[in-house]
């Protein structure tokens, strides 16, 4: 789960990590009120969307007057921001963060992630802040410093000093160490997967401040992170994906025309691959998970069909923990309860497969049954061609 920059900064503040003074607002009037309250002569207005690349995309602007703050906020709010990470359709801006502008002396990069290779939390730092870390990694890998944290003892002071020295902050090692250990505590306490501060700055007054922040949390840990779970912004997510997750389905929208309903994440990806192999294009990833009831299958149909690009639906079930007869009943129920104008191809295998196939045959529905994965993908792609013809 991702959260907004202003929410991430709230969390940093709670852990004693300095962030610029500021407040999130939803209207231009509130923006000018906040700017006045903050005082100063320069402010920054930052569009709050769950995607990076905002600076280059015009989502971060500096204002030299309160009137300008209001003007920028007015332009941003309700507009669609397109950045390198939003995709061409962009993201709608519903809120902006108004902050007092910082006087930057130097910028750094700082992040923590759960690293799957070392199976540890790793701290990544670079003296080249404010730019994409991927670019630094590609062009000057020696400019990136990493420290692996032993989960038995946590982040140690000497490791923090080592990082401070490596990014040219040796003279501020003590205060840097204090902040880094607070950030690590936050990362561990809140079950973060990623925490990125880019840039982390030294102000002209010599203070260390987190100027931007991105946080990602472990979905699997949200059950014990209620305050974090409340920060979820459904406006930032595909409504179909939100709808699906509410029914225990895992759905990811893609841009093809073969709607997919599959059990298991691996087989769902494999099914997409088989479709591509036959020259087709999947419209979505959809995993119905284990214990797929008839109702779940019906919901899967409904969600897949809300995508107007879907020309064919392919149901591919290899039942282990599931049962083919339940799945077949779900297909029958789905086609009875809602208008389905596209061809439906089903491939059933595994537990109770004979019973499942019989239910489909006896239903008299115009469902095209496939023998195996290859046959199913071929029939789905052929059906798309027929619909188009």
């Amino acid at each position, binding site marked *: 789960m991702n959260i907004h920059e202003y929410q991430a900064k709230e969390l940093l503040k709670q852990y004693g990590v300095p962030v610029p003074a500021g407040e999130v607002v939803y209207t231009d009037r509130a923006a000018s009120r906040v700017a006045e309250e903050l005082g100063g002569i320069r402010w920054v207005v930052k569009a709050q969307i769950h995607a990076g690349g905002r600076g280059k995309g015009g989502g971060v602007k500096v204002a030299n007057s309160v009137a300008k703050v209001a003007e920028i906020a007015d332009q941003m709010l309700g507009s669609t921001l397109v950045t390198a990470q939003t995709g061409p359709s962009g993201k709608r801006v519903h809120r902006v963060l108004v902050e007092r502008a910082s006087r930057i002396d130097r910028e750094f990069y700082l992040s923590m992630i759960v690293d799957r290779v070392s199976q540890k939390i790793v701290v990544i730092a670079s003296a080249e802040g404010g730019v994409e870390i991927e670019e630094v990694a590609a062009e000057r890998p020696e400019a990136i410093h990493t420290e692996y944290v032993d989960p038995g003892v946590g982040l140690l002071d000497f490791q923090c000093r080592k990082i401070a020295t490596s990014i040219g902050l040796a003279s501020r090692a003590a205060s840097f160490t204090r902040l880094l250990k607070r950030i690590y505590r936050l990362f561990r306490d809140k079950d973060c997967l990623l925490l990125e501060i880019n840039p982390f700055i030294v102000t002209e007054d010599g203070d260390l401040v987190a100027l931007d922040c991105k946080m990602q949390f472990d979905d699997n840990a949200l059950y014990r992170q209620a305050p974090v779970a409340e920060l979820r912004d459904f406006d930032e997510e595909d409504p179909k994906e939100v709808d699906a997750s509410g029914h225990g389905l895992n759905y990811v929208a893609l841009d093809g025309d073969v709607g997919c309903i599959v059990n*298991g994440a691996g087989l769902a990806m494999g099914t997409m691959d088989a479709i591509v*192999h036959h020259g087709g294009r999947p419209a979505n990833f959809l995993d119905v998970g284990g214990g797929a009831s008839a109702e779940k299958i019906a919901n899967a149909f409904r969600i897949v069909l809300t995508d107007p690009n879907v020309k064919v639906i392919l149901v591919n079930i*290899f039942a282990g923990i599931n049962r083919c007869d339940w799945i077949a009943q779900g297909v029958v129920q789905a086609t009875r309860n809602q208008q389905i104008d596209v061809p439906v191809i089903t491939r059933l295998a595994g537990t109770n497969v004979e019973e499942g196939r019989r239910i489909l045959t006896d239903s008299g529905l115009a469902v095209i049954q496939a023998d195996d994965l290859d046959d199913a993908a071929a029939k789905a792609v052929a059906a798309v061609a027929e619909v188009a013809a």
Partner: protein
Amino acid sequence: MSVFVDRDSKVIVQGFTGQHATFHAEESMRFGTRVVGGVTPGKGGMTHLGLPVFNSVAEAVEETGATVSGIFVPPAIATDSLLEAVEAGIQIAVIIADGVPVQDMVRTKRYLAGRSTTIIGPNSPGIITPGACKVGIMPSHIYLPGRVGVVSRSGTLNYEAVSQMTALGLGQSTCVGIGGDPVNGTDFKTVLQAFENDDDTDVVVMIGEIGGQQEVEAAAWASQYMAKPLVCFIAGMSAPRGRRMGHAGAVIAGDADTATAKLDAIEALGHRVVRNPAEIGDTVLRAAKEAGQGPATAS
């Protein structure tokens, strides 16, 4: 022999009296698995499925001599159950739960460093030696005893690959699902090592997916140290970047994480790759024939 589990393995089930555990324990027993009891704290002394229930893994191990545990508890308490099993001397522990917080696994792996227990999972379909032992949730009837070793992240893709092989008369020595999480107990390389050392395995199939480099690292190890042919498939050729595809570990974070990049790297290391998941069975059959093994069933 087979790897990790065989017909002599004594298995206990943690979370024994739960609904899923009960269903799958019965299935496993029907399949011939030597389930010797189970653990549900607070229900010690009961009999379930005709077997003793214990309050702790330590008691279960002491009374039954079990060395293998199938952990069928919810994700929030999975690592606790795992560590209890490790402390009690269990040698092979299989965690089925999908949804274990990744930092729980980070801490658990640190705790396990230097210990000999083999952890399969979490988010695993389990492990099965056809005709001998099953610890997990896979549909037993699609498996056929034979000489192909199968290791995958995903459960259902494991079933898919196995059913293609079984249809061609190509049986399996052991099938291992290492799980779809980013931090897991046993990696691909460890399972490949086990298959390489197993007298009953001739050919090995590795089924991975987008995200991370574990499959490529395992393939690099194999091209140096493995004599047996290795066939690889990586799912998610059409997956978009930065999106989690069901499994917590299935996210493309960089160029090297894509299915195509991983398959290319594995092919360049000299292994056979499958780009269409419908052709896993055929490809394994060709590899088996070239290795001098036709469709062979029971060994």
